[in-house]
Each structure stands twice: as structure tokens, then as C-alpha cells.
């Protein structure tokens, strides 16, 4: 099957039942999305399919019809996405393992709601678990990202 990931086309020879996450990680070399639970309960594997956040650990690769975007496709160290920039400025990450998923959920949130309320943040981010307890900083960073996006950064 043919997949578009981070703007690049991949020919993937996989069991269609294989979750998108493992196709990305093991077959396409995209290790940005992380394995946390395998049952869509922690959000570490969050990627976008046609701009919508999905839990790639529970989405069979055979069912993927749209373009996939991972953390590796939204920005690079030289040119960060405003959400990544906000994460950097607020020094959000501790162990960092969940943050690729947190950032992808936050990017999707800000694409849909330009200036989210605390309740919007709770709704959009509630599926992303962080065992280091970085939630207070995640909240502040999302608000900073709003400012950075508005400023065109």
C-alpha cells in the first residue's frame, strides 16, 4: 500500500491489520510517534491523518486513507512549529516521552480553535497522559503558542 507521511510517499508492505504506529516506526523509520499503551489510552502515539488527531497505535494501517503527519513533519530544530517553540520557551518536557503526542494534540487543537479556553484545553488534551506531571506547563505553553501563532511565528 502507498502512504503519504510528512509529505513523503512510502510504499509499505504490511499486514493491513498492523497499527499505523508500528508501520511508521518499524517500516518507515518514523520513530517520533511513541508506543505507550496500544489501546488508545495514553496519546503518546498521536499523529494527524488529514489534520485530525488520531491514536496511531489503534488505527490499522490498511484503514488509513489520508495524508499522515507526525511530530517529525511539523517542524525541525531550525524551524520549529509555534507549538514546539512554545514548548521550548516554557521548558515543558521532563522525560519527554509523551511530548510528541502532547504537541500533536495541541497543534490539532489550535488548528481548530484559535484561542482555546481552559475547558477547550482540558477536552483536547485529556487523552494525553504525562507521568512526569508537566500539565501546568503544557497549559501555559498552549497559551503561549496562541500568542506566537498570532504574531506569525
Amino acid at each position, binding site marked *: 500500500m502507498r502512504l503519504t507521511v510528512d509529505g513523503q510517499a512510502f510504499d509499505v508492505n504490511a499486514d493491513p491489520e498492523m497499527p499505523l504506529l508500528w508501520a511508521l516506526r518499524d517500516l518507515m523509520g518514523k520513530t517520533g510517534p511513541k508506543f505507550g499503551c496500544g489501546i488508545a489510552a495514553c496519546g503518546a502515539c498521536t499523529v494527524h491523518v488529514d489534520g485530525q488527531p488520531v491514536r496511531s497505535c489503534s488505527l490499522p494501517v490498511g484503514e488509513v486513507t489520508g495524508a499522515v503527519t507526525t511530530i517529525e513533519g511539523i517542524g525541525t530544530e531550525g524551524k520549529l512549529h509555534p507549538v514546539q517553540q512554545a514548548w521550548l520557551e516554557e521548558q515543558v518536557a521532563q*522525560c519527554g516521552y509523551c511530548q510528541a503526542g502532547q504537541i500533536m494534540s495541541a497543534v490539532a487543537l489550535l488548528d481548530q480553535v484559535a484561542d482555546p479556553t481552559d475547558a477547550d484545553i482540558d477536552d483536547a*488534551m485529556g487523552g494525553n497522559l504525562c507521568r512526569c506531571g508537566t500539565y501546568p506547563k503544557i497549559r501555559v505553553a498552549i497559551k503561549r503558542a496562541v500568542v506566537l501563532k498570532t504574531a506569525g511565528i
Partner: protein
Amino acid sequence: MASIGKIARRTFLIGAAAIAGGVAVGYYYYRKPYPNPLEGNLAADEATFNPYVKIGADNTITIIAPRAEMGQGISTTLAAMVAEELDVGLGQVKVEHGPASYAYYNSAILEEGGPFAFFDESMTAEIVRAGMGVVGKFLALQGTGGSASTRDGFDKMRQAGAAARQMLIAAAAQKLGIAAADLETANGSILHKASGKSLTYGAVAATAATMAPPAEIRLKDKADWKLLGKPQKRIDMPAKVTGAPIFGIDVTLPDMLYGTVKMSPRFWAKPVKVDFSKAGKMPGVIKIVPIDTNYGHGFGIIAENTWAAFKAAEAIDTEWADPEYPLDSAGISEVLKQALGTKGSVMRDDGDVDTAFADAPREKIVEADYAVPYLAHATMEPMNATARLKDGVLDIWCGNQAPTLVRQLCANAVGIEQDKVSVHTTFMGGGFGRRVEVDYALCAALMAKETAGRPIKVIWTREEDMRHDAYRPASVGKFQARLGDDGMPVAIDMTIASPSMITSTLRRLFPSISPLGPDKSIVDGAHNQPYTIPNYRVTGVAAPVSIPVGSWRSVGSSINGFFHEGFLDEIAVAGKTDPVELRKKLMAAYPAAVKVVEKVAEMAKWGEALPAGKAKGMTFTLSFGSWVGEIVQVADTPAGIRIEKVWIAADVGTALDPGIIEAQLISGAVYGLSAAISQEITFADGMVEQSNFHDYDAMRIFQCPAFEVAILENFHKMGGVGEVGTPPAAPALANAIFALTGKRIRTLPMSKEVTFA
């Protein structure tokens, strides 16, 4: 407190080994330096000064931060120690974890391993503490834990930076023909202001590294610090916001195979019947192999991708032998309760407790039974390791908290010498004590024996991870207090029974060593608190349940902080004393503790009236050398109890990076609250019942309270920060819930008794 005589007569357990006497280890070994592990492994034109500093001719400066980065920010703070004295900016250096080496032993991890409280500065306590540091070196533990990394590194890493700087200046002085005293350093260069001449460190590194290290190392005054004491940008942050492949699970090697494990869900039990016929034929499956280690028995599945391995693991049909421990949680609780009635080790015995209770009138007695469950670590990154065994040489890539242990035990497992094993320590997606264990590395090493030299990345499912942990032990406590006429406690008697984490750890790591003496972790957080009570006894009993238990963020203090501080709140209520005033009175001999309590009370406006439906609870725990007070505010909402706000005041002695310390204190509290609210590991049919985040969840963003943190530096010794936020969190919540509802929660998790919003 224990006398030197008592200590000489008994043995006590430290870390992963039993050392008779503790003070008897020869200083010869302590004085003898380990060789620099960076030598012989340098890039062209690179010079090394000591195990912590490498400088290339192109002025690339590399600092070795030999402690595991699991989110606590240690790589940044350790690098800052060296950079401070080397006079370079953090943005100017590369930071590496470095190889597994005895040169990177952690002495501080064991310093508090003796039977003394942190504040006990008697000669006996200090002698044992120094002896423990020697033991740390003697055992050459390169470990990350005990919130000890900054305390361990503070002198030796600053000295490493200062020594290298002095050597670089000496080499520059020689080259320029200018007296060393006339040279200055800044940003990786040596300057002669008068002539304007300058040399980069790189230009003189090769010469400097051949010079004798300075006999006298001059360290900067604290007032002159440029990096330390100020929040630094974490060196790992750019990689962590871009999804860079920095974790063990991201390791990718040419020709790599993938795998997973299916270990016995009954600890230590062997398979009695197994059928591979279905699993072995599944697409992508290469081989299924037995795995037998000191952690237990099971199978490794070698496959072409992780998913194929996971599917095959599910399809293996096995029956396992019966467990050696009680089948279910009720049976385990019974063993713990029975242990409470047996003879234990008295770890604190002030005054005469028996006499104090003998004539106590009934109305002056406060009694309570407490209990906490087993807990899993549930790091975000499931256990994994990548291994390659080729031409008799084993390479292991994994996040781990103890590289020298990984090296030693993996060498033993595959039957090669330790010098044929290289451990490549990656960043960790959480540790919390779980990655002190080496089971994930052993599994990968054994599976690498079966792949004809191809590397294999072995990733556990979340279910396998949840069901094969070295759990925080369950524990039960029986407490009694006698109040005086003023409501203050005149006597406290605490007995705590729990499986011994030291005994359990030895069985896994060093089965040839017999556990001797009491396990102080059973009473840590209860026996060593800075309260003065005339009659004060704390007894620990090791309960014989062999489910694997280990270090879980803050270890014994996570249990006993809850027990001690919950019970103290009950004493305050019974004696009609304000909980803050009660603690200030009992702590009067320890001004640092009093200041912490005063500070947190002031921040939270303790004592001011709250609107109806809101309440606060307070606690204090001294652990890992830091004095921490926490106040939790809860609110009654239609959806249940909401944790609104947490105030934390912590005296860490010297605050090396206030930004990272604040993040750690909040992190520790969230970890403790997560457990308090809903976490428990229970057993049925000899197996762990929980399997994933749907039945072992943690706090989510919508449950997370606001935090306010104050960092104090009153005490004259430095404390740790990675674990100290955890112990006061659960009791502060329990005390707040009591203030709100009148319901006293003595058993965790709290979700069994109240509903949370």
C-alpha cells in the same frame, strides 16, 4: 537514635548489598582512583582531562554527565557543575552520558543508607555516613537514584571542571610565555588582557591534558556563579520537542530484528505446558526462545517487526505453575496483618513507650490502622532494550538507572566477560526507580544469542510491563498515640509491616548474597522525621510475600509519609491543635523544618476562612535530605472532589537550578497524587489484575491542580529533589478531604471511598 555500639553489633542493609558493620571498609580502596574510561576511546585530536571532560582541537567541549536522564533534568545540572568551573556556557558544550564505568560510582546514593535521620549530625552518624560513601565507591555503583545525583556530583564535577581549567591555563601560559596568574578564561578561551592575546581551549587541550592535575583545586565562591543557582535552558529540550530518536525504544540499527517477551504472569513460576504451534507459524515470526533469568521464566519472540512479535506472544498457549505466594490480594493482606503481630526491628526508640502507654486513660489514646497497596511504576516508555551479540562482544542499548549492573548481569547471562560488554545508555521515557532493574536488558541479551549476530530490539507490551514490575510494596501500619493534657502527643508507637524491598532486590540481582539485618526502607519516612516526642517508637517488620518489589519514586517515604502525616493529622484533630501549630511545636529543635512549615502556611494563607465547600490539608516530610511541606486545597463539586491547588515549600539546602527543582517538586506531587487517587496493583489467581492505563490510570490534565512552589536554602546540607515532592502529597490530600468531609481516609487508593471530579 542508634549508638555506634548497636551498629557494630548488627548489620544493616544498604542499596543492593549487605555490608557487615558498614564502617569497616578499608580506605585504601577509597583513595585509589579508577582509571579514566574516556582514555582509549577518544576521537582524533581529542584530549581528556578526567572522566568528565573531553576537549577537541576544534574547541568542541564535551562534558560527561554519567547519571541517567529520565526527565529530572540531571544532565543539564551536572553539565552546569562542570561548565561553571570550566568557564564555558551550557550552549557551548556537548553533553554525553558516557560509558558504563566504575569511575562514575555514586557515593551519595548510599550515604543516607545508615540507620540515622538526615538531621542527625552526631559523630556516630557522620562516621557511618562517611563509611557509606566509601562503600558506594567500594561497590562502584554507577547508579541514578536516591535523589543523590547532585549531592554526589556537586564537589567532584565542579572539581573536574576547575582542574581542567587550571591545566588549560597552565598550558596556555607555557605556550604564550605569560605567567598563569595573568591569564583569564571566558567562553572556552584563555585571554591575556594586557596584550590582547588569546587561545581557545582546543588549541592547548592536547598539551594541557598531559600536564599533572593541580595539587590544589580552587573552586568559585557561590557569589561568583554564572550558571549554578540560576534556571538553565535544559540541554535535552530541543530533541524532546522535535520527536528526535533519543529513547531506547527509538534505537535503530542496520539489519535489526524485533521482538517481545511473554513472561510468566505468576512471578517465579515456570511454564508447565506450552504450545507454540499457532504462534510459531504466524507471518513475520522468526523464532520463539525460552527465557530464564533471576526475574522469572517465559519466552522471547523474535520477529521481523514489533507487531508480528506482539501478535505471536498473544497466540502462545501456556499454562504456568502455581505461585509461591498467596493467590489473591486478600491472602496477601492477611500475611501483612499477621506480620504486624510478629517481632520486628525497632528503628527509633526514644523515651519509654511501653511505660507511657501503660497508665494512659482511654480518652487520651488515638489509634488507627493504615494500609497502602502495591503500585506499578508505569513509566510512559514501556520496558525495552536492544542487543547485539556478535563475535563474542555484546552491545546493549537501553535507558537504565544502573549501567554497571546492566553490564555485569548481562555478561553473566550470556556467559562472557564484562569487558566484552558495552552499555549504551539512552534517555529514558520515565524511570521512577523502575529502570534500576535490569530485566529488560537481560531479556534482550538472551534473545541476541539466538539471532546469529543480528541486533534485536525487544519491546514489551504495556500489559507485560504492568504485570512484570518490581512494585512499590504494599504496607500496613498500626499506630497509637497518647495525648497530654495540652493535646500534644507525649507518646507515639508505630508498627509498619511490608515485604522487604532489599530482600526482593537481592533475589533478582545478587541471589548469592543473603539479606542480613533490618530493611530500613520499611520505616523510611516514619522513623526519621524531625519531630521531638518524649516517647517515640517506630518498628518495621518484613512480611514474607515474595512478589517482586523495588524502588518506586521516594521508596519507603511514599508509604510512610502517608502513614505518619495522616496519623499526625488525627492527633491534631483529637488534641484540638491546629495541624500547622502542632508541627511547629514538635519541630522546634529543627529551625529549617519550622521555616518550611511557616512558609507553606503563609503561601496558602493557612488559617484564613475559606468559602463553604472548600478545605485544606497540610503535611511535612523530610526525605532524601530535603525538607518539604505541602498544602492541598480541595473543593466539593457536583462531579466529586476537585483538587484545586497545591502549595509546596521545600528547603533543599543549595538550589542548583531553581527551574528544574520547581518542575521536579510539582512532578513528584503529581506522581504521589496520581497514586493516591486511584492506583493499586491487585492480585487474583496469582497474577496482577491490572494491565494498562484503562485500569491503572494516572492524573490527567483536567484533574491537575494549580501549583505554587517556594524553594528555601536554610539548611546547611544539600538535599535531593527528584523524589521529595511525592511523600507529602497523598497525606495532604487525605487531610484536606478530612477537613472537607469529616471522612478520614486511612487506606489507599482514595477512589474506593470518595469520588473525584
